């Protein structure tokens, strides 16, 4: 892997960075003690979903955008239906609102369980991947698989199927589950809550690099609940805006080395979205069981160490299982599965909390309900610049490490963000160049 080029320059290439979704590469150039260049290069071809949506009826947006990602299709559906409902000025019933929240819990459980156990845990336990880890830590992997499965089941029961669910629509759902269908999930969710608490305790014993960059965290915040489908966009540095101001405050920048746009807070720079940002900004909205478990696991907010994102995900697993049980306990099937959504010429936007962070959608509709324009800003686009900046700060601390370990630490730092490159625009190549 390491190829000496000359006495003063070395290049390390890792041709395949596993455990991220999408195709991209990382290029790092070091000269002596100085980090000269860091580029998270995303070369996955642009996917043109915003263009595909033009001319389609608003009722198709949820199903079309769900195809953007096989891991977080519910997030795309939720942002789409909420943006269109805001545009049309309709408010769903409290029962539908709760059911959507339950659907999102399923999405978080499946996505977070996958990342914590199968994608990120190998980094902390010193394995190349989950396959190698499974030989020595069978119980851990089995626990992750079972947790993910309950998330899949929840999405399947409410959404109609696990991948690219089909039930969510503008105004509600095409079909809502019966009480019996949801109650059948309770026993497994009770196990999942205990398993999530055990995951958080397990995470306390992992070794975290001493790395606490001072950055801006951005997430939704709701006055009465941990954010999933709605809230104001807030940060730890005073940002507090309605989502309708998103495009005024957050700019998208084209950079040559990426087919995904970089997002920046206007006049402020990069920021972080995702589980660590959410937990930092909404810790008080977590249920008592989660806050107590966090304290027992030695996890306190504010937490600025991106490597501790695995703990934030574990904490959100506790929340998602607890919340799912709460909603199922109160569930009354809505009298009407959906409310009418009459078409009119209008514009509307919404943001929801995808497992990887804030997911913003905006739609402009004509009088017949056809989409004239659409804009989608996924969480990985928002985190790209922040990932590069993390690496810029982290690399000087790694200069005494062998190049191979330095490369591995860079990959781990990228996986802190669970980037979904497919969403943002498959395979990431790390290229590390060192001179002097």
């Amino acid at each position, binding site marked *: 892997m390491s190829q000496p080029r000359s006495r003063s320059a070395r290049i390390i290439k890792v041709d395949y960075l596993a455990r991220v979704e999408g195709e991209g590469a990382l290029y790092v150039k070091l000269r002596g003690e100085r980090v000269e260049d860091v580029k998270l290069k995303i070369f996955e071809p642009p996917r043109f979903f915003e263009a595909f949506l033009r001319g389609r009826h608003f009722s198709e947006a949820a199903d079309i955008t769900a195809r953007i990602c096989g891991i977080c299709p519910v997030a795309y559906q939720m942002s789409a239906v909420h943006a269109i409902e805001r545009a049309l000025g309709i408010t769903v019933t409290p029962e539908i609102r709760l059911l959507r929240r339950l659907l999102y819990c399923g999405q978080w459980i499946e996505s977070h369980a996958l990342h914590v156990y199968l994608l990120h845990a190998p980094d902390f336990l010193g394995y190349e991947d*989950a396959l190698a880890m499974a030989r020595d830590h069978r119980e851990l992997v*089995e626990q992750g698989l079972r947790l993910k499965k309950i998330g*899949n089941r929840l999405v399947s029961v409410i959404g109609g199927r696990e991948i690219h669910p089909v039930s969510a629509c503008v105004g509600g759902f095409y079909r809502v589950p019966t009480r019996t269908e949801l109650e059948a999930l309770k026993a497994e969710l009770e196990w999942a809550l205990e398993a999530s608490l055990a995951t958080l305790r397990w995470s306390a014993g992992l070794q975290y690099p001493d790395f606490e960059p001072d950055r801006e965290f951005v997430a939704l915040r709701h006055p009465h609940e941990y954010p999933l489908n709605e809230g104001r966009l807030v940060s730890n540095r005073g940002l507090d805006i309605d989502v309708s101001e998103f495009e005024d405050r957050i700019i998208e920048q084209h950079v040559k080395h990426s087919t995904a746009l970089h997002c920046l807070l206007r006049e402020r720079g990069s920021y972080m979205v995702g589980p660590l940002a959410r937990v930092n900004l909404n810790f008080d909205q977590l249920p008592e069981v989660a806050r107590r478990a966090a304290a027992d696991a030695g996890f306190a907010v504010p937490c600025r160490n991106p490597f501790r994102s695995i703990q934030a995900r574990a904490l959100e697993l506790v929340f998602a299982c607890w919340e799912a049980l709460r909603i199922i306990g109160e569930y009354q099937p809505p009298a009407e599965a959906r409310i009418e959504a009459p078409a009119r010429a209008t514009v509307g936007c919404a943001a929801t909390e995808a497992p990887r962070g804030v997911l913003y959608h905006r739609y402009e509709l004509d009088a017949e309900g056809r989409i004239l324009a659409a804009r989608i800003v996924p969480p990985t686009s928002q985190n790209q610049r922040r990932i590069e900046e993390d690496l810029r700060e982290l690399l000087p601390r790694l200069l005494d490490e062998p190049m191979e370990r330095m490369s591995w630490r860079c990959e781990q730092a990228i996986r802190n963000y669970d980037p979904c490159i497919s969403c943002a625009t498959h395979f990431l190549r790390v290229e590390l160049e060192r001179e002097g």
Partner: protein
Amino acid sequence: MLVIGCGHPDCGDDAAGLLVARRLRELGLAAAECSGEATSLMACWEGEPEVILVDAVMTGAPVGTLQVWDGARTPFMRGRFRCSTHGLGVAEAIELARALGRLPARLRIYGIEGRAFVPGTAPSRQVLEAVERAAQLILAEAACMNPD
């Protein structure tokens, strides 16, 4: 016996496994569909002693080539299968299940060589022809196993 077709319906030749499952159902044989995401695939075959898995593959063979492997005995190389999520696709499902002792006792893998996996495109003619050949072979295999 459970037949599982894997793939993506809208990514050119990646639809091969799903198309075989759909063709088998037309021919009267039950067949499941799966995206190929590792944990979903493992859940799909859980408790099934005999599984036939169909997916598009990339081995360097001519497009449309149909290959059959014994998954229960053959270690699977990554990169053979096209479809994966966060790097966890069909090959990882097979190897993870093997490591955990959760592999079906009998696992036959039908791989259809694909070439173009571009979103929004249709499968190639050679892959569509291979889909029909695979469906007929699986139907014959099922008939041998369940002569009634």
